[in-house]
Structure formats: structure tokens, C-alpha cells
């Protein structure tokens, strides 16, 4: 875990364009952003404003058309840094945890198996203890032998959060983590995020439509038409 308060993610002049027929769509337009270790940053904005695109590029799931990404003072994507899937896999594995609106739990695996799923692909010492501790922290230990279909939406998102954190990432990226949850569950996830940040110094970047939920963040970044309006 990153304990110091240095910049952990630096995005410089990011642009991302898509071709739709002959039309060129700019999802991001010259976006620059610095995120400090241990900070909770919320990206808000209307649909199509580019917040999910920004999150995906910050998390090395997508590459920018131009601009660059510096992670822990090392440029990993940008001009003169070719896109290399293998290298990005390593970064994703070691640095990031991802949470999505639809949870994406494997329905035939139990809660516990879903949480330790990353370790089916790579081994890490102390994995079992980390999984047990995380399930306790997110409050799903008593459901560890249940299948996802037997859980509520809030519980499923907790499982997804535990799965994202089991590999002890430095940064948690959450795309609409409460999009499928009611108000009570949304508040619970908000409290959990703050607890994880306070306890572990976790950096959290989240994308949300929910302005009330965004208030858990230390900083809110508002995007509109692919540009940062306010930060």
C-alpha cells in the first residue's frame, strides 16, 4: 500500500477519439489530472461526458489517442510508449482493482471462490488470509459459501469489491459501483470505501451519476463533452 501522499496517477493531455462512420467523436479532449495516493476522487458528469473512458485509460484498460499516463512516476502509456498488452496486464495485476456496475461475479462459484478468483491465474503469498480478512472487512464472511444468485445487490457489490482488493492493489477504480443499488446499499458502499481508504490508504477513483454518493470523495471532477469543467 502506498502510504506517502505523492502523486500516484498523472494523466497529461489525454485525448481519445472514436470513429463512427466518417464522423470522429472525441470522448476525451485534452484532459489532465493528478491523483494523490490515498485520495478518493469522484468523476461525475452526464452520460457521454467521457468519465468512463477516462477511468478506463487511467486503469490501463484502454489506451489514449494522444497524451500520456504516468503511474508512480513511470510513463506506461502515451507517445513513444507502445501499447503492450503483456506489460499492461502486469500493471493491472499489481496496481489496480476494478469494480463495475454489473458486478460480473461468476454465478457457479461461491462468494469465497469469486473473491479468490484472481489467484486461479497467479499465485501470491498470503492470498487466503487476505481473502478471509477482506470478506470480514466488507461484511460478507457469513455468506462465503453462498452462490452470487443467493445474494442481494449490495452483497454482490461487496463481493466484487473484495475480489478487486484481494490482490492488494494500490488503486481501486470503480465504475458506477452503486448504479444497481438502492439508497441504503449506496450509503453502505460509500461508508465501506471511506473505511478502506482510512484503514489501508487505498486510492479510489470512482465514476458515478449519483451526486450524493460522489460526496464521499475528497475531490469531485466534473466532466462535460470530454473536458474537465471543474475539479
Amino acid at each position, binding site marked *: 500500500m502506498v502510504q506517502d501522499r505523492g502523486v500516484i496517477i498523472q494523466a497529461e493531455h489525454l485525448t481519445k477519439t472514436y470513429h463512427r462512420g466518417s464522423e470522429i467523436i472525441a470522448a476525451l479532449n485534452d484532459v489532465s489530472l493528478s491523483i494523490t495516493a490515498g485520495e478518493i476522487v469522484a468523476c461525475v458528469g452526464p452520460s457521454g461526458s467521457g468519465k468512463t473512458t477516462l477511468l*478506463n485509460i487511467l*486503469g490501463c*484498460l*484502454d489506451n489514449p489517442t494522444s497524451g500520456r499516463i504516468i503511474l508512480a512516476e513511470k510513463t506506461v502509456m502515451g507517445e513513444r510508449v507502445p501499447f503492450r*498488452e*503483456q506489460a499492461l*496486464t502486469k500493471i*493491472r*495485476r*499489481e496496481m*489496480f482493482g*476494478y469494480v*463495475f456496475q*454489473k458486478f*460480473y461475479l*461468476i*454465478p*457457479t*462459484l461461491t462468494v469465497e*471462490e469469486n473473491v*479468490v*478468483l*484472481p*489467484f*486461479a*491465474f*497467479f499465485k501470491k503469498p498470503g*492470498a*487466503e488470509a487476505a481473502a478471509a480478512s477482506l470478506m470480514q472487512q466488507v461484511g460478507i464472511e457469513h455468506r462465503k459459501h453462498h452462490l452470487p444468485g443467493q445474494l442481494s445487490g449490495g452483497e454482490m457489490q461487496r463481493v466484487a469489491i473484495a*475480489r*478487486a482488493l484481494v*490482490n492488494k492493489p494500490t488503486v481501486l477504480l470503480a465504475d458506477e459501483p452503486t448504479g444497481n443499488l438502492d439508497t441504503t446499499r449506496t450509503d453502505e458502499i460509500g461508508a465501506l470505501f471511506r473505511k478502506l481508504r482510512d484503514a489501508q490508504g487505498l486510492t479510489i477513483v470512482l465514476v458515478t451519476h449519483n451526486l450524493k454518493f460522489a460526496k464521499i470523495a475528497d475531490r469531485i471532477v466534473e466532466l462535460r463533452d470530454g473536458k474537465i469543467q471543474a475539479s
Partner: protein
Amino acid sequence: MITIYQVAYKNLLRKRTRSILTVFGIALAAWVLVSLLGFNAGYELSLSRDIDSLGYQILVTAKGCPYEAATLMLKGGTGLRYMPQSIAEQIKKEPEVEDVTPMLMQAVFDPNKGESGGYSAYLGVDPATFPKMKSFLQFKQGGWFTAPDAFEAVLGYEAAELEQREVGDLLLIAEKEVEVKVVGVLKRTGTQDDGTIFLPLKTVQQIFGTDNKLTGLGIKLKKDANLAQFEEKMYQLPDVQVVSLTQVKQTIMTLVSTARVMVFSIAVIAVLISAVGVINTVLMSVMERRQEIGILKALGATAGDIFTLIWLETMLLCAAGGVVGAACAVATSTMTDVFIRRILPYSPSGGLVRINPQLVVLTVIAVIFIGLLSGAYPSWKACRLRPIEAIRSQEE
């Protein structure tokens, strides 16, 4: 801790019906393959055993259809041509010959046999030479005939059961209205002798009015005799044909191999169809799980991990299909035997389908190998998915 094998196995449980149907398709192909290869091994072995247990290496018959002669040699036949008995003495003088045994096959329709009647075949044999050539025959009850012209019968094991006769009973020869006394019942041999009713040659000639006539002559050669040369010599005799063991084997195996090639082609097609089914199933599963594959990559799975996962799923389907198919083939081998006997014009006694552990293991390995090939394309498709493309497909 979960392993990639457990993940692959549990992934297959998601669409149980689809997985079961795919396994079923592979199992059917494996079933056909094992049964066919088992038949291939079993038929040849049984045929060789049948021929080797004849006791003589060459059969001389009156000139006619070679297939009819082969049938006579192995199964007995009706409506046959005759040759004069004197030919036996002539052949016996040849230096290569150790012994000859004359035979006369006759058959009559018995209306009381079975539900709608059937043919009973009687083989007239020479009491002086036949038992010597068939020294392996053992008696369950009684023994050979008391005189060369006695009205007596020796029944093969199955013939005794079918006729429900034992030593001391009388046996009526239908049409001729003649009764013969059962003096011996043979032990089971696993050959055509089990279903034969043996009578003294002279008795058969007398009952059927075929004096000095034979339908066949079994010839046993001396150990150092040249079989091919002797056959050539026999071909010089007028109005007879010579059937050697090699010829009989070749004739029947030629007939069977034609059918075997056809059935084998069908089995190969079945295997190919099941391979295409596997590709389709796994590819469909990959397409349905694009987002999930994206998430796995986001969680740190490499392209190699995804390839292995999808490949393992294919292998599991194929291995399960192979094992189930092979097990079904073993379990139904007796039924397959009965079925093949019904459709083949001639089938030797003994097991026709011989499935051994090596055959089962080889088939399962072959099916897994097909799984390896079938799984390669879907696995390659899956591992090439970029996480963002896969995750984005949820919104499409």
C-alpha cells in the same frame, strides 16, 4: 484456494443442458469408435480361432461357388454339390497328406423346430478319422459311435440344448422319419461344432440315399508339407475345388473389410461432426462471456491464462465424452455383438467385439486430442479479446 481447473469445470456447469448435449455428441462418436475397433479386433481373432479349430488345413469340395464352399467349411450348407467318395482314397495317396476325413452334410426342414419350423443340419463323419483330427473335442456325456454304420448321433453342446436331448434319447430326422440314438454330447467348444449334429458317414449316406457321395473332404497335411505346392496339385483334380484356411480367411476378411471401411468412414464423420459441435459450443460460450473474459483480464489474467481456461473447458467436455462413450461401448459390447451377428452374413463363434483396456485408453486419448484441436480456435479468439473491448460489449 481455487485453481484454473475448478474454474473451467464450474464454467461448464452454467449451461448444463448445453454441456451435457455436447458431451453426449462426443460420447456417441467415441462409442461408435470403440465398438468398431473392438469389432475389428474381435472378428479377426474369432475367425482365426474358428478356422484353426477345424482340425484340417484344407477342404476339398465339389466345384461350385467359392463362398458356398467357405460357408460349408465354417457353418455348414445345404443344396450342395457332391463328389465321389473315391476321391478320398486318391488324395490320401499323396505324400504330403497325413490323413483325410470325408464328410457329408445334409439338411432337412423340420416343421417342429422353433415357432415356424427350421432346418436341421446333419454332418456325416468318418468315425475312424474324424475324432483323430478333432482330438480337442471332449464329451460331456457318452462318446463316439459304436459302429461305422450305427444309427447313432453325437450332439454338439448347443445342438443338445436346442433339441433337448441327452445320451440315451432318440432323435427323429424329419422328412426321413428315421430315429437315431444319441450316444454322446460334446462339451462346449466355442466353435461351430457346438451347433452340429454328427452322425456316422455311412448312416447319413444310407438315410439320405447318397451312397458313395461326399460334400467335403478335410485334409490334414504332414508338418513339413508345403501348403501352397499341395494346393496347386489339388487344383489339377477335375471337378473339385480346394479351399485352404488362408483362402477362407482372406475371402471372409475381404467381405468384412469392405463393410468395415464404410462403417469406419461413418465413425470418422461422426467424430468430425462432434468436433464441429464442440467448436460451436465453446465459441458460443466465449461470445456469451466476452464481458467476463474482459473482467478476468482486468483482474490480472494474461492472454495465456484465458487461452488455457477455454482450452481446459474444451478438454473437459471431450474427456468426459470420451470416457462416457468408451464406458457405454464396454457396457453394450454384448448387445453390439448380437446386433452385428444379425446383420453379417457370416460371423464366427466366440466374441465378435473385443474391447480391451488399451483400446479404451487409446480412444479416450484420441478424443482428447480432437478436443485439443477443436478448442484451439475458440481459445485463440478468447485470448485475443482486449479487456476494454470485452467490457464495452456489455453496452453494445
